């Protein structure tokens, strides 16, 4: 693989890939934590103000969490 000299002349493409993989996994974990906070927020909102769309927001926030988990699984499995 060709070397990439953007950051450091000694940094090889393989090192960059390891860095990208670690960053993606860490990012996915943070994303999941953030999704949990969003779920909490939608429930707080639903408690405070009930509208026709409160259940839809809760479903969307759960979907967001599912996407985060899928991203983590993909990152671990395919990278």
């Amino acid at each position, binding site marked *: 693989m060709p070397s990439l000299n953007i950051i450091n002349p000694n940094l090889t493409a393989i090192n*960059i890939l390891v860095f990208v993989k670690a960053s993606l996994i860490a990012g*996915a974990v943070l*994303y999941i934590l953030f999704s949990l906070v969003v779920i909490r927020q939608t429930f707080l909102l639903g408690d*405070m103000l009930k509208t026709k769309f409160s259940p839809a927001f809760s479903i969307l926030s759960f979907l967001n969490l599912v996407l985060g988990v899928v991203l983590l699984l993909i990152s671990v499995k395919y990278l």
Partner: protein
Amino acid sequence: MPSFFKELFYSFIPEPKGVEFHGEDKDEKILLLLRRHVVTNIPWILISFGMMLVPFVIPQVLLVGGFPLDGVIPTHYSLILVLFWYLVTITYIFESYLSWYSNVYIVTSKRLVDVDFYGILSIRVSEAPITNIEDVTYTLKGIAATIFNYGSVIVQTAGESRELEFELVPKPAVVHDRISDLATEVRNAKS
């Protein structure tokens, strides 16, 4: 305009249907539901568009700068990176919208309620009975506020929480008038 659109995107809703808030009395009626003017969402909407373009722009910038990514990062890495970026973008949009949607100001037949979500982790709810209203003022500042007719309505109260501010709400003059009339009605009914 379909009613669901109205509920999702309007910021001035007189007598909203299907809306309840925590602590609402059975004989209480919501007269006005307010949010910040829709125009105040423009900054995060523009940022979202910028974020959507990032995966297209960065490779071009690197190419022009002499750092082509072809062959350096395998395709499946790029795909997952782009997927991750779009998930972050979607979350940013959802969170920004939710922040706008959940910051509400409610005028009922008995009180004023101000619900503020600060960021994603804190919430503040202030309320004042109509009977405690002493003074209502509104301000309309700046070019955008003048063009789109939005501003802040400040309500001075006699209670513990001395001031309630309805920030950047549409038609501040109408809101001011409505609250003043309501306070006068309640005062006259009492005396």
